[in-house]
């Protein structure tokens, strides 16, 4: 039992070689891997911490938003209620307008219908009245009445509005001083003379009257130029009567509509 020097030196070399080999194949690699893993885990932990912090910040943000939402909810509800009320008012207003419009249209339609009926009635009434008047006057008409009519006509001519008189005179002059005098019945030469003189006096000295008869004229006289017409007959009275009659009818209709 002793120290074998060759073995001792060989063992020293063996040991040093083993140190070198293990440093290369074991410690370096294992420690490197452990450090790398630690760095990775630390990185992951950092990342997790960062994500957690981010998530917490986000959660805090949402909590704050929830609180804000809760705080604002009453206001929002009130605002929504107000808006709904306004909207309802608008809709009601629109509905009211539509209803009014429909009512107006209905009233207008009613009015139109009534007007149509009245017009129809008026026309029939007028026709009947005229028919009656015409028949009555035709039956009553004779030379004496004609005389009377002419007399009234001459009075009307004398009291004619100056502007109208000028207009007729101008029209007569434009028509080569010829004027047509239309009557329902043939009139006497004296009456013609008198009318011609009156026309010359009132309108123009050189006017010439041409006398014709027309069945359309009821108890009246008509002065006619190609551009002007001056009439007096019973029709004008009938028209006045018709106007007052229809006015009274219209008033009654309006009163009825208001009551409805």
């Amino acid at each position, binding site marked *: 039992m002793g120290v074998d020097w060759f073995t001792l030196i060989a*063992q020293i070399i063996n040991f040093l070689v083993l140190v070198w080999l293990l440093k290369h194949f074991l410690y370096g690699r294992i420690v490197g891997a452990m450090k790398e893993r630690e760095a990775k885990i630390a990185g992951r932990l950092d990342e997790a911490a960062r994500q957690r912090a981010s998530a917490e910040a986000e959660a805090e943000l949402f909590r704050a938003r929830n609180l804000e939402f809760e705080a604002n909810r009453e206001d929002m509800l009130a605002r929504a209620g107000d808006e709904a009320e306004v909207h309802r008012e608008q809709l009601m207003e629109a509905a009211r307008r539509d209803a009014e419009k429909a009512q107006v249209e209905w009233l207008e339609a009613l009015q139109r219908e009534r007007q149509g009926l009245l017009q129809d009635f008026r026309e029939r009434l007028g026709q009947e009245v005229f028919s009656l008047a015409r028949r009555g006057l035709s039956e009553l008409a004779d030379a004496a009445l004609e005389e009377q009519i002419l007399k009234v006509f001459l009075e009307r001519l004398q009291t004619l509005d100056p502007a109208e008189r000028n207009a007729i005179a101008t029209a007569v002059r434009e028509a080569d001083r010829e004027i047509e005098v239309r009557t329902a019945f043939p009139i006497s030469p004296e009456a013609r003379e008198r009318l011609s003189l009156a026309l010359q006096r009132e309108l123009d000295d050189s006017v010439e009257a041409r006398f014709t008869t027309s069945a359309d004229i009821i108890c009246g006289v008509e002065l006619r130029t190609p551009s002007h017409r001056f009439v007096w007959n019973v029709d004008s009275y009938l028209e006045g009567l018709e106007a007052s009659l229809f006015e009274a009818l219209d008033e009654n209709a309006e009163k009825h509509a208001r009551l409805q």
Partner: protein
Amino acid sequence: MDITPDAIVYWEAGSVRITATLVFTWLVMAILVGGSWLVTRRLSTETTLSRGQSLLEIVVEIIQEQIRDVTQQEPARYLPFVGTLFLFIAVSNILAIVPGFHPPTGSLSTTAALALCVFVSVPLFGIAERGVGGFLRAYLQPSAFLLPFNIIGELTRTVALALRLFGNVMSGTMMVAAALAIAPLFFPVIMSALGLLIGLIQAYIFAILALVFIASANQAHQEQAQTASINEKRRDGP
């Protein structure tokens, strides 16, 4: 029976003798290096590890923890040397239970070689830490009169290191052999188990002592530096 594997010679040419010590040393080296290579060629840096990598990482981590505890320094500098001492001795001693295996640590040449390595490494680590002058001054501490004792202490502790390991391993082998002769059935099993424990403890003791020797030289220097700085602060203070 052979007390030491140095006595088993496989090949001889002059003073060159290939003994069982060398052959089994190479075997242990091959197992250590081959196993490390096999495991570390595919290392995972993820959280899922192979069993081999887990084992090696646990071993390396334990060694690093021990170095850190003893030296209070980062273990990277001492790890290859101290770790290899522990692993070589531990694997040699554990394989002693394999029939036909002669642990190289049972050879005084091997333990002396390892002790010499420690003996040389102490000044090398010391010089690397604080330079030649700083290291040599440590032998004059606390007084120049103690220089011979310091030198004797260095030598004797190296010899003690070598003899302790050799004696323990050799005695373990001897005891198993003796027990086999006396009670060949059950007793050797118990002795082998005890031998395993003793082998691991010896590996641990050898590595820790080497570490303590290396660290104590550095720590003495550090303590001196700390004392000097404290004294300076006291002088500067009120």
